């Protein structure tokens, strides 16, 4: 029996096609994945991402603990509400998971951090984090009492304010990659955490609230003209936006340096001893053998994960591929030899098709950003 989010009935009422996603019944689309994709690029859509794992970390040792646990440095976010994207690495520099961590101060949870990790990696993440936390003064609380709704698109914030009114007023002036704690007694005494973050390349909010209040919020957003969007469009939106998907674009056997995520590794200050640092420094010194690039297929067809990429400098592999509704062409992320550039071939069903190697993102903020 699969798990249901607090919005399961809303998905069925909206004619969702439900699929199994790591033990959760989730909507893949509500009719047309491509229309949903355009809805988010051009207007506003919402995703039920309640299956994702929210962890609240508190305790006097929590900052040094996260500085050891994460490849990015939480010292960079010592302003209340500020968000940071990071990888959590193993000793070999491989990626255990990628995550977002928010710094919180003065809220009803107490000072500390909120971390959002992937649903697919929940068990191993918790095991790893708890193991690292054994000797630290840190409390870890899994917030499976919360639901999460991502409202994304150029009109997403306006419509969210229209739907949720003064309850989320504290989010109005948020800069990108900041969150506001909107919890107070007038919100049914409940928590309400609104972050200007997302996984689509569009503006918007990720809203975390008690699961018991999720259906009402969803309904209010629907009434304000925010359309439900399935996990299918979420994948093509993030691919166009050049955002990695854990388990496809990187995993425990690839480092952030060969996954287009060097920008998320804080090597400075040199004395910060984060897990995986020694392995990454070694890789950095000799230069990573591979890199993650964008591909645009020039021939007709569809790029898919695991297709073989042939370059002048050796072979590579597509890590994520699909049809891009914004470009009207097939695009992919691929791991290729570090020296590869400009052109490559992709093997699809025994045929070699021609593709261009490009910088990504492919599309963000409603526009194509690559040629």
């Amino acid at each position, binding site marked *: 029996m699969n798990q249901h989010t607090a919005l399961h009935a809303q998905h069925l009422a909206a004619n969702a096609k439900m699929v199994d996603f790591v033990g959760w019944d989730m909507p893949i689309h509500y009719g047309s994945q491509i229309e949903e994709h355009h809805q988010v690029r051009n207007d506003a859509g919402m995703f039920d991402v309640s299956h994702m794992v929210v962890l609240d970390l508190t305790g006097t040792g929590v900052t040094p603990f996260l500085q050891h646990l994460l490849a990015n440095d939480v010292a960079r976010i010592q302003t209340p509400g500020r968000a940071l994207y990071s990888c959590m690495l193993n000793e070999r520099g491989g990626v255990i998971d990628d995550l977002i961590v928010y710094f919180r101060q003065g809220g009803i949870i107490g000072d500390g951090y909120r971390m959002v990790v992937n649903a697919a990696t929940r068990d191993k993440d918790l095991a790893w984090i708890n193991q690292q936390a054994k000797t630290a003064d840190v409390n870890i609380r899994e917030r499976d009492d919360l639901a999460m709704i991502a409202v994304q698109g150029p009109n997403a914030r306006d419509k969210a304010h229209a739907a949720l009114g003064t309850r989320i007023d504290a989010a109005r002036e948020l800069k990108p990659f900041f969150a506001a704690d909107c919890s107070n007694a007038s919100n049914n005494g409940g928590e309400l955490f609104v972050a200007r973050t997302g996984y689509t390349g569009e503006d918007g909010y990720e809203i975390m609230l008690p699961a018991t209040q999720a259906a009402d919020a969803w309904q209010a957003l629907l009434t304000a003209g925010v359309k439900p969007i399935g996990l*299918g469009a979420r994948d093509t939106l993030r691919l166009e936006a050049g955002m990695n998907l854990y388990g496809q674009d990187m995993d425990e056997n690839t480092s952030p340096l060969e996954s287009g995520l060097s920008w998320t590794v804080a090597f400075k200050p040199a004395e910060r001893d984060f897990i995986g640092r020694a392995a990454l420094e070694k890789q950095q010194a000799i230069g990573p053998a591979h890199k993650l690039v964008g591909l645009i297929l020039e021939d007709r067809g569809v790029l*898919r994960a695991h297709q073989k990429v042939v370059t002048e400098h050796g072979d590579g592999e597509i890590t994520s591929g699909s049809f891009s509704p914004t470009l009207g062409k097939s695009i992919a992320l691929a791991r290729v030899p570090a020296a590869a550039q400009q052109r490559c071939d992709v093997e699809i069903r025994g045929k070699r098709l021609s593709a261009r190697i490009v910088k990504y993102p492919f599309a963000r903020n409603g526009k194509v950003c690559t040629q």
Partner: protein
Amino acid sequence: MSNVPNELKYTKSHEWVRAEEDGSVTIGVTDHAQDLLGDMVFIELPEIEANYTAGEECAVVESVKAASDIYAPITGEVSAVNEALADTPETVNQDAFGSGWIFKMTPEDAGEIEELMDAETYLELIAAESH
């Protein structure tokens, strides 16, 4: 419930087959199949005059979600392909049994068509698969 026209024949792999008056057969994917696959973005058509044995892979339909093989429902030679699908693969979603047809074959043995499933049996198949 799914749209399953009575006058067509069907395969387990969700192709539909229509016997034409000129002796050829027209082949496409069923409305049920297009609904499962979602938005079509690319159709790889077979080569005209290529010969296939019943059950052999001969075309591919790709939705945003995944690629799916199309199998020859009968043994014979490809006599026509729906070139319009190159620019408008979404026709398969919009009109699976009509303008979303994929290719035509000249059967080696016209009797083979009669061995395919009728609408009633196909309806039972998709009912069983969805449980």
